[in-house]
């Protein structure tokens, strides 16, 4: 038995897919958090040159696709996580299928709107 047991989806229901995405997005967010803190540590350079150099890369248009994917991870993880918390309190368990559909639609809608805003801000 291993972590591969988290990623079995053959013959599984939509809930396994949701679980799998929750895990993957969680790992992506963790990696992002580490990268973000590493990034911020560049502020130790009091001249600000290192930070300015690094931020120039990440606010570029070429980097937008990664930002959009990161927002997808954050939005899905947060909204799906809220659904899981509801069920963990024993709330609306019988409506788990419609709730999963509703929360997924909300996550996609929020992600599309956020992507549009980010695209506009980068002068798209």
């Amino acid at each position, binding site marked *: 038995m291993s972590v591969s047991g988290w990623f079995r989806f053959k013959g599984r229901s939509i*809930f396994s897919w949701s*679980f799998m995405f929750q895990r993957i997005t969680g790992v992506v967010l963790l990696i992002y958090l580490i990268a973000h803190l590493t990034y911020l540590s560049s502020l130790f350079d009091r001249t600000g040159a290192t930070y300015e150099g690094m931020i120039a890369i990440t606010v570029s248009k070429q980097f937008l696709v990664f930002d959009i994917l990161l927002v997808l991870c954050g939005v899905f993880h947060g909204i799906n996580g809220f659904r899981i918390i509801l069920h963990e309190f024993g709330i609306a368990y019988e409506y788990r299928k419609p709730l999963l559909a509703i929360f997924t639609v909300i996550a996609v809608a929020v992600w599309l709107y956020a992507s549009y805003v980010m695209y506009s801000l980068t002068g798209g």
Partner: protein
Amino acid sequence: MVEFKIRRYDGEKSYWQSFEIPAKRGMTVLEALYYIKENYDSSLAFRASCRMGVCGSCAMKINDKPRLACETQVLMLGNAVKVEPLDNFRVIKDLITEFEGFFEKHKAVKPYLIRKDDVYAEPKELLQTPEELNEYYIFTLCIKCGACYSVCPAAATLDDYLGPAAMAAAYRFCADSRDEGQRERYRIVSSSNGVWRCHLAMECSEVCPKNVEPAKAVQLLRRKTAFSILKSLLGW
């Protein structure tokens, strides 16, 4: 004719073997396995007992999904049927998996009524309203087939995890108005291998052949356990 592809295991190596079955209307996967055993290969090993979805012995992975072989009709599955042993269990031979650990976990949660006034010499009638029965009735339907455990991602990564079936049994008795052993069980299920290990993938409820909803039982047990811990911290 329907092609049966069975994952076999001889104690050393695992391999696939195919058989052609003359399937007819109403034939179950279990009947097909008996057909193979009687006509092609008598060494094929699988577990079965009641043949009517009550004992839970014949749970196996059929076309990637855990199901009861005795309740799954061959013609509903198409022209190709893939049969494998359940995941998350150690395979002993062919489709037979080791269930001792699974039953040990079940036993560990004390799945019986605990009473302080349990005097056999003077039996006492314990009355219960239909509403009180409804609190736990659905969870009494578990047949311990292991289908829920085989799809549980927490059980996939942790051998000692109690699993959905054992915790559904624990909740069944904790929610029973006649039971007085809740605190004892809360202590067991709130251990590091209990309710807090559940990731709520909810796949266990999806595959349960008896619609027991083990994932719901685990969450309700979580809530009860949390309140119990809180009460004991406050000295209530």
